């Protein structure tokens, strides 16, 4: 006999006192073991963590956020506000704030509750509950205001320690997360009856269809429907057949365990597929999650509806849950959520739950219907079943500590008067408050919601202009199985047609099912107790009550958006799934207005909490940002270089020898360049080829310098401004030919300079005949600097006369080096005789090594960016971004000489004439020498005249660059100081936080070889 036909007298039924003997979509023959708060329990395949705990009679699954009240599971799905748990596989695989109702059970699962210390049963924070009167809405804003000094030392640390939901993992996440882009004509979100028929209709058109659902199985409400018939078959059979039919379409992608978390412009929808979270031993080849970025022509939202809780006093005790959740636990998971139930009903859902529970053997103590004259198929069936039904009843309160043990049921008159309270014992109290269409994604799409008075709910309104979506089934306000199936098919067909499909058929789904019922009650339920003392919870996750909302209204928070923030209702991970409509109801009551007059709050993505891994995908570690390496990188690595990040580039910062720190290495490298020869990898310099008959004119307009008269074969230091007159970039520009310039930019500025050039060329001066080409990666650059540079270089160069007369400072020539083409610049950023050898990157390493070998005769020394910085600072050369900060004019940094005075216009010229740009009190570039001749100043330090002046001090400027100069034997610094050039020789003070100040003398920014004698190295 095959296993599946063996008599199923499972162990589970014995060990799990609340497990039913049969039924549901669980497999009683596959027991699983798991732990919750360290205690081991059993469950079965198909359980969620919540259903497995309920099978043991465990309702207490969490503590509330503010009052630390004991809380039980309230829902059976993603709307769960209470049962938030942390599931851990190890220190790095720890996920907080998971809803126990969505956590699929696997063998060995380990979960802990949150927001309690030391345990769920005994929580120290529960003391907050006794001081609830002291913790009203806006408590934080009111209480922690004074004294100001307490904020940093007392309030903030305490609040931080007690705030937050769950704890962050302590180790890096070892899992992989993938992302993929997907395109389809029709995306259907939600695979309940409406979503299934929508997908069927769209599938028949032959278009690409994606159907996703957040649950482990597709089917939605059908998964817990044991009574309806569709097309003459039980609902579960129809479901199985429909899924099989959908699977036959090659154009349909079915995605269970996939949540539509965000709806973005132009029908861009984010889905997260949980690939391995439900597995006991995930395959390491699989990603944990996969984010689908779907671009859909049309979207059908078949996201169903959430059941509304009822707002009555003490409605938050463990054992109080939504009626439909109870139906789901019994019918789908084979779990009885209690032994004796009271059902508070404002909707037929309460009757459905009562019938399902009664069939499973749960005693129905009473169905307390708020309505005076209920009717309909649910009511009739319950009466036929002989269940105790009382009408015109409200709940005036509940009792019990860790679990509800009774409900106070009272009569309520049409005038709202309450009398005749009767206490009834129960361990399960269900709330059937009606339904709220799930329109989070609809709202995220910026489409409008409109109030439907008939069903007392917001329903889809006008679709946002840039989106293409429609809702179907309960999400559209069409309740009941009949409506779900028919509106779903219709929406799917319409979506397919809108997306360009044809051949859509019509189908009729004949059902035998419960009548649709839109009855509801919104607002605080009437009761006869002291309204100032009782708490009826509206937002269970954020612990806000009807009393809080009423207080907020009394204090003047009339706008629903303000009241939301003041009371925190509808915020955080829950995003108001269960609380939004009750909140609007209470606020409407308190203001004597209708709900549409109150307005509506905005739903924000994500629909349910989404992992950072999902968004990061592969972009972490080395893949976080592309890494750019030069052709010399590996050589430098071999020499033990220490690298630094400059934009995306890795640059060698210094080359320490045995035992050297950065100071020692830089001092040695500096001396080598000044006394003999250094070699430096300048490949990261940005390069732009500016070519065309109007190239010189274009350069004249883009740069402050004059270019017309620059001879072919000559270079010039160019400075570029933004249109606002501030220095944007700089670099040496060589004229290769009349119509061709080799422009260099800063390492970090290459892309943005080219973008700015293209902007002017394309949009302001399209008449100029010029082409711009990025050449950054076409040329590797080897800088050879020092008195011996020419001697070492000469033997390798062909076709260029390197003699000082033929190839002077600021010359450029094309020729060959080591047999490859080169653009050879004679330039110096060090003040020494220098060459920058541009060669194709493929040949760069060979040329570098040849020069290095030849240079060994003269102790050639590789140097890095740190030495480059020191050497240029000794010469007073600025670095854009270090001496400048986006507010420095050319004059501020001593570059007025570079401006082409005869030019009528260039980018930024007009701005230089604005009054503020010529103010003599502007900050100007100066050199600083520490008076003690020893102290290396802190870069960024503030400069003042008198460090003893009262605060706030008058700050005259700041240090921009500061180094120990090996050549001079003392520290040097560059600074921007108010009217600095007129202060030469003055002594000012540089502030050192915590240590007073350092006296500095203002001097010329050129510290070394002011005459430029070293350039020719004669």
């Amino acid at each position, binding site marked *: 006999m095959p296993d599946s036909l063996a008599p199923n007298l499972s162990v589970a039924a014995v060990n799990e006192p609340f497990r039913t003997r049969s039924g549901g979509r669980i497999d009683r023959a596959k027991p699983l073991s798991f732990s919750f708060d360290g205690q081991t329990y059993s469950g079965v395949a198909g359980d969620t963590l919540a259903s497995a705990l309920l099978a043991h009679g465990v309702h207490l699954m969490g503590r509330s956020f503010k009052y630390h009240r004991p809380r039980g599971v309230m829902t059976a799905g993603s709307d769960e506000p209470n049962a938030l748990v942390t599931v851990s596989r190890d220190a790095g695989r720890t996920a907080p704030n998971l809803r126990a109702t969505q956590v699929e059970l696997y063998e060995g699962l380990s979960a802990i509750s949150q927001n309690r210390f030391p345990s769920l049963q005994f929580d120290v924070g529960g003391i907050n509950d006794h001081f609830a009167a002291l913790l009203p809405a806006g408590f934080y804003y009111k209480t922690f205001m004074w004294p100001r000094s307490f904020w940093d030392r007392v309030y903030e640390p305490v609040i931080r320690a007690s705030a937050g939901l769950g704890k962050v993992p302590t180790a890096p996440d070892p899992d992989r997360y993938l992302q993929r882009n997907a395109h389809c004509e029709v995306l259907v979100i939600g695979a309940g009856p409406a979503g299934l028929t929508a997908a069927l209709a769209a599938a028949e058109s032959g278009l690409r269809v994606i159907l996703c659902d957040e649950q482990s199985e597709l089917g939605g409400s059908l998964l817990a429907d044991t009574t309806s018939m569709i097309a003459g078959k039980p609902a579960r059979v129809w479901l199985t057949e429909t899924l099989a039919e959908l699977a036959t379409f090659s154009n349909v992608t079915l995605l269970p365990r996939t949540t539509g978390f965000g709806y*973005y*412009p*132009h029908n*861009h929808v984010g889905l997260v597929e949980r690939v391995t979270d439900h597995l006991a031993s995930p395959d390491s080849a699989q990603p944990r999650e996969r984010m689908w*970025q779907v*671009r859909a022509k049309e979207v059908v939202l078949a996201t169903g509806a959430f059941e509304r809780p009822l707002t009555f006093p003490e409605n938050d005790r463990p054992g109080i849950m939504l009626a439909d959740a109870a139906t789901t636990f019994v019918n789908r998971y084979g779990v009885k959520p209690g032994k004796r139930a009271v059902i508070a009903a404002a909707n037929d859902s309460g009757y459905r739950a009562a019938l399902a529970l009664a069939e499973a053997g749960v005693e129905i103590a009473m169905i307390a219907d708020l309505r005076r004259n209920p009717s309909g198929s649910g009511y009739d069936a319950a009466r036929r079943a002989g269940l105790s039904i009382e009408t015109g009843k409200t709940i005036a309160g509940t009792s019990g500590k860790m679990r509800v043990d009774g409900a106070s049921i009272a009569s309520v008159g049409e005038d709202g008067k309450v009398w005749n309270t009767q206490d009834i014992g129960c361990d399960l109290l269900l709330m059937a408050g009606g339904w709220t269409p799930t329109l989070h994604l609809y709202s995220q799409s*910026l489409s409008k919601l409109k109030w439907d008075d008939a069903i007392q709910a917001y329903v889809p309104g006008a679709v*946002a*202009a*840039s989106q293409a979506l429609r809702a179907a089934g309960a999400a559209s306000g069409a309740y009941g199985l009949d409506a779900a199936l028919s509106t779903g098919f219709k929406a799917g067909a319409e979506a397919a047609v809108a997306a360009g499909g044809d051949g859509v058929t019509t189908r009729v789904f004949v059902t035998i099912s419960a009548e649709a019922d839109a009855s509801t009650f919104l607002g605080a339920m009437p009761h006869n107790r002291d309204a100032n003392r009782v708490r009826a919870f509206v937002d269970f996750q954020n612990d806000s009550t009807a009393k809080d909302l009423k207080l907020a209204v009394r204090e003047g928070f009339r706008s629903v958006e303000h009241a939301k923030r003041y009371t925190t209702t509808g915020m955080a991970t829950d995003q108001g799934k269960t609380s939004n409509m009750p909140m609007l109801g209470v606020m409407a009551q308190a203001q004597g207005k209708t709900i549409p007059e109150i307005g509506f709050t905005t739903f924000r993505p994500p629909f349910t909490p989404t992992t950072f891994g999902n968004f990061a995908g592969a972009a972490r570690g080395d893949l976080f940002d592309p890494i750019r390496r030069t052709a010399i990188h590996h050589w430098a690595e071999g020499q033990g270089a220490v690298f630094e990040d400059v934009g995306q580039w890795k640059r060698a910062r210094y080359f320490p020898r045995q035992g050297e720190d950065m100071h020692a290495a830089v001092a040695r490298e500096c001396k080598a360049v000044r006394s003999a020869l250094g070699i430096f990898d300048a490949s990261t310099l940005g390069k732009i080829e500016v070519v065309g008959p109007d190239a010189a004119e274009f350069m004249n307009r883009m740069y402050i310098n004059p270019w017309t008269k620059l001879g072919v074969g000559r270079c010039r230091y160019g400075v570029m401004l933004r*249109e*606002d007159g501030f220095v944007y970039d700089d670099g040496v520009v060589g004229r290769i030919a009349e119509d061709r310039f080799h422009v260099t930019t800063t390492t970090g500025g290459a892309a943005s300079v080219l*973008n700015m050039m*293209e*902007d*002017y060329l*394309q*949009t*302001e001066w*399209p008449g100029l005949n010029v082409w711009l080409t990025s050449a950054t990666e076409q040329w590797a650059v080897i800088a050879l600097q020092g008195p011996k540079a020419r001697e070492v270089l000469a033997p390798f160069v062909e076709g260029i006369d390197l003699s000082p007369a033929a190839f002077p400072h600021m010359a450029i020539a094309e020729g060959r080096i080591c047999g490859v083409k080169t653009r050879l610049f004679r330039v110096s950023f060090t003040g020494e005789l220098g060459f920058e050898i541009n060669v194709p990157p493929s040949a760069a390493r060979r040329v570098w090594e040849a020069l290095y070998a030849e240079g060994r005769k003269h102790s050639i020394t590789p140097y890095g960016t740190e030495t480059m910085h020191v050497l240029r600072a000794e010469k007073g050369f600025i670095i854009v971004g270090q001496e400048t900060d986006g507010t420095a004019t050319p004059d501020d940094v001593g570059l007025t000489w570079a401006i082409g005075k005869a030019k*009528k*216009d260039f980018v930024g*010229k*007009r*701005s230089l*004439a*604005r*009054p503020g740009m010529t103010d003599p009190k502007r900050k100007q570039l100066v050199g600083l020498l520490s008076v003690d001749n020893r102290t290396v100043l802190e870069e960024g330090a503030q400069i003042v005249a008198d460090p003893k002046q009262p605060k706030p001090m008058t700050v005259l400027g700041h240090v921009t660059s500061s180094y120990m100069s090996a050549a001079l034997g003392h520290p040097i610094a560059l600074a921007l100081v108010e009217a600095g050039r007129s202060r030469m020789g003055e002594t000012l003070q540089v502030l050192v936080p915590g240590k007073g100040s350092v006296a500095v003398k203002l001097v010329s920014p050129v510290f070394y070889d002011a005459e430029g004698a070293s350039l020719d190295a004669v």
Partner: protein
Amino acid sequence: MLIIPCPHCGPRPELEFRYGGQAHIARPVDPSPLSDEEWASFLYSRDNERGIHAERWRHIHGCARFFNVVRDTTTDQILASYKTGEFRPEAV
């Protein structure tokens, strides 16, 4: 993420583009005679429209060309896209 219709390449995802600010702000042919106020207005004054907005985009990871788009900033609906130098369509 928007889908932006490049007038040279067709519709492409926003990732391929770079925003270029408000459109149709021409740099004065000769800035020198402008008053400081006029120049400051050219430099800094932008409409910051809530609603229909003509703006520049550059298809930086495609054809690299600048072009103009008319977009409703409240809905992200793109009403028109046209080449640099062309007039804004009268209908939008």
